[in-house]
């Protein structure tokens, strides 16, 4: 069977599985819809959390980013796993004991304030929609490259599948499809990584292969060879970073706190039966996540090595099929600056901007570009997102592996999209409708609103996927920065510091939010030409500014709380209650 036939088969089978699970696990109540009835086994929840968390960015983009950033890519590896330590130790168990349905529920009740709840809802919706837009781009790339359908049709098919299981099953449907999606995506990630590790080093474990010696070159390890190869081409050494230490530090911390504060991850821990399960489940989740995250740096290094090997000094006409395939959808571009018909690869951008084709073919048969060339020797433009998807083809693996990777990429994008759409719909039906504007809603009515909100959110997400706003790639920093500067501190302080009151929490959240938003907006949109270390405050880039936003949030929350009235007795008792895993409450007076 052809690779494309296999891809249709794998993707079709996986979609049939997801829909089958959805029909089996319909939601009957709001508790089913919001938290899967609160009875999910910690291991199953760990898998679902891993699929929920690992998005198109983790599956498709991360290894590609690391491949091109080398050591600097560590910020993503550390930031997106270290956040689980914060989540497991500081947030998840207490929020589970709190026993409500949403993150704004906690902020609203702990800070006895409708305003605090609304601020939390706004943060949540903004963060989640930013994130969803990225997933849709991932779905579009996979469909257009591997199934050769129009990107728009691809997005519509993806939306239809999510619609069935998210609207029918709510959290219950999502949980069990995410378990299946985790299995698909991890299998799809590991199989090519193992193959390639064996090809390059002879060691089947990619985590060890990364440090192993290259086959046929005794005494030279993969990383040494990569350092040498890249330095020959004019790049910095792979294992050394270019970013300033303070920036690496700030980005890592912002990503960690942001991860712990992401609503769609937090609510997954509302689905386990009890407090101790929430802690265990975070541990299982991190094991499942680490399987991919410790493999990614190996995939990155192998991919970079293979890419240089396959491309540099190769005749365009002799390049393998994948090169012209990706060129066909504009993610690779080649400009034959010295007219030798061979591809020269090196440091620096080959030309200004992203490839703009004029529809004609050059003398070697390449798609002709209209971009202005730069004066370095590099002739190749390559989009980082293709590294994982193209990796099996670059390493000449069999067709079924390529088909598997397509199914895995879709599983990663769809599982995360579903989790995000669910928290958006819950925020609307529960926090805005039931808790704020229509407290008289019955459970059935609230459930109906949740389904309507989920359907609406899917339509909006689909629209964003088909007409991606130009700034999507620019605003990823927003989601983590804002979560780190607003939601994470508000929840953390609410649990560990009884004295933090309504005024302090709201002032802190708004300070963190406005500061972070303004800093990112200034450097990303208003003055992008100033977006470099010389102009950044303390040398911290917009990606890392959430760390400063978080510190400001803490400072303001403590200062304002200190000069205003302490929270009411009932709220202090609430804090006592969530701090202990069981019991009917804490006796304060021993009379």
């Amino acid at each position, binding site marked *: 069977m052809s690779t494309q036939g296999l891809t249709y088969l794998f993707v079709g089978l996986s979609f049939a599985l997801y829909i089958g699970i959805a029909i089996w696990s319909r939601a009957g109540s709001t508790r089913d819809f919001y938290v899967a009835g*609160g009875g999910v086994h910690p291991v199953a929840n760990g898998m679902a959390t891993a699929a929920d968390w690992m998005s198109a960015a983790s599956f498709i983009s991360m290894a590609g980013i690391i491949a091109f950033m080398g050591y600097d890519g560590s910020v993503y590896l550390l930031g997106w796993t270290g956040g689980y330590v914060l989540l497991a130790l500081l947030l998840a168990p207490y929020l589970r004991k709190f026993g409500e349905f949403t993150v704004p529920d906690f902020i609203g009740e702990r800070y006895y304030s409708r305003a605090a709840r609304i601020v939390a809802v706004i943060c949540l919706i903004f963060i989640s929609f930013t994130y969803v837009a990225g997933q849709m781009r991932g779905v579009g790339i996979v469909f257009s490259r591997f199934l050769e359908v129009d990107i728009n049709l691809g997005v519509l098919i993806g939306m239809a599948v999510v619609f069935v299981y998210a609207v029918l099953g709510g959290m219950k449907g999502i949980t069990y499809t995410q378990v299946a999606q985790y299995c698909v995506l991890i299998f799809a990630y590991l199989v090519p990584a193992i193959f390639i590790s064996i090809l390059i080093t002879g060691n089947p474990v990619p985590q060890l292969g990364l440090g192993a010696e290259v086959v046929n070159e005794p005494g030279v390890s993969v990383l040494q060879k990569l350092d040498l190869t890249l330095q020959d081409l004019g790049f910095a050494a792979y294992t050394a970073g270019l970013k300033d230490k303070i920036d690496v530090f700030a980005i890592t911390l912002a990503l960690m706190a942001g991860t712990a504060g992401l609503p769609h991850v937090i609510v997954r821990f509302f689905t386990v039966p009890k407090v*101790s399960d929430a802690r265990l489940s975070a541990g299982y989740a991190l094991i499942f996540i680490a399987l991919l995250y410790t493999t990614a740096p190996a995939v990155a290094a192998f991919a970079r090595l293979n890419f240089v090997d396959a491309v540099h000094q190769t005749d365009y006409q002799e390049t393998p099929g994948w090169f012209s395939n990706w060129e066909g959808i504009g993610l690779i571009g080649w400009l034959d600056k010295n007219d030798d018909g061979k591809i020269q690869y090196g440091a620096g951008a080959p030309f200004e901007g992203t490839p703009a084709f004029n529809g004609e073919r050059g003398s070697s048969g390449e798609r002709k570009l209209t971009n202005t060339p730069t004066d370095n020797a590099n002739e190749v433009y390559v989009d980082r997102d293709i590294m994982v998807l193209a990796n099996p083809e670059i390493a000449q693996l069999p067709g079924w592996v390529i088909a598997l990777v397509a199914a895995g990429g879709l599983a990663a994008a769809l599982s995360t999209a579903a989790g995000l759409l669910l928290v958006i719909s819950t925020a609307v039906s529960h926090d805005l409708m039931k808790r704020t504007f229509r407290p008289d809603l019955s459970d059935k009515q609230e459930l109906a609103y949740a389904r309507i909100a989920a359907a609406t959110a899917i339509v909006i997400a689909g629209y964003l996927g088909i007409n991606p706003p130009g700034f999507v790639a620019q605003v990823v920093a927003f989601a983590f920065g804002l979560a780190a500067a607003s939601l994470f501190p508000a929840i953390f302080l609410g649990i560990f510091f009884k004295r933090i009151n309504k005024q302090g929490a709201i002032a802190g959240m708004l300070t963190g939010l406005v500061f972070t938003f303004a800093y990112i907006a200034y450097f990303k949109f208003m003055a992008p030409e100033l977006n470099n270390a010389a102009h950044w405050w303390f040398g911290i880039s917009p990606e890392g500014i959430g760390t400063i936003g978080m510190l400001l949030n803490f400072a303001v929350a403590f200062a304002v709380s200190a000069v205003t009235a302490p929270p009411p007795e009932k709220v202090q*008792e609430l804090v006592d209650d969530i701090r202990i895993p069981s019991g009917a409450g*804490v006796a304060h007076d021993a009379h």
Partner: protein
Amino acid sequence: MAESDDQRQADDAHVYHHDEAGNRPVQGHHDAEVIGEQAVSSYWRANIRLLLGLLAVWFITSFGFGILFVDELNKIPFFGFDMGFWWAQQGAIYVFIILIFVYAIAMKRIERRHGVDDDA
């Protein structure tokens, strides 16, 4: 019976009950008990001590070994890696997993000792 109900109501005046929450954890054998302030505060202190210790390890392995001291550690070869690079792209992640399980297991012990565990 009536007397214990009275007792219960008298206690209620000083106890926060969050019974109306829609997603309370499942029943544990301590659920009916009102727990003394002293047990709770010594439980909480033990928890904070444990947290601080584990977070110190979390910080040292990721921010310390992987970022702040990466150049010094990179001078040490480690199974084909430079050691600082290994901590940043592999080692810290393994430590994170261990930390969470250590916390889960140690907390269970602390909770049982103070009579606040959520065992069935």
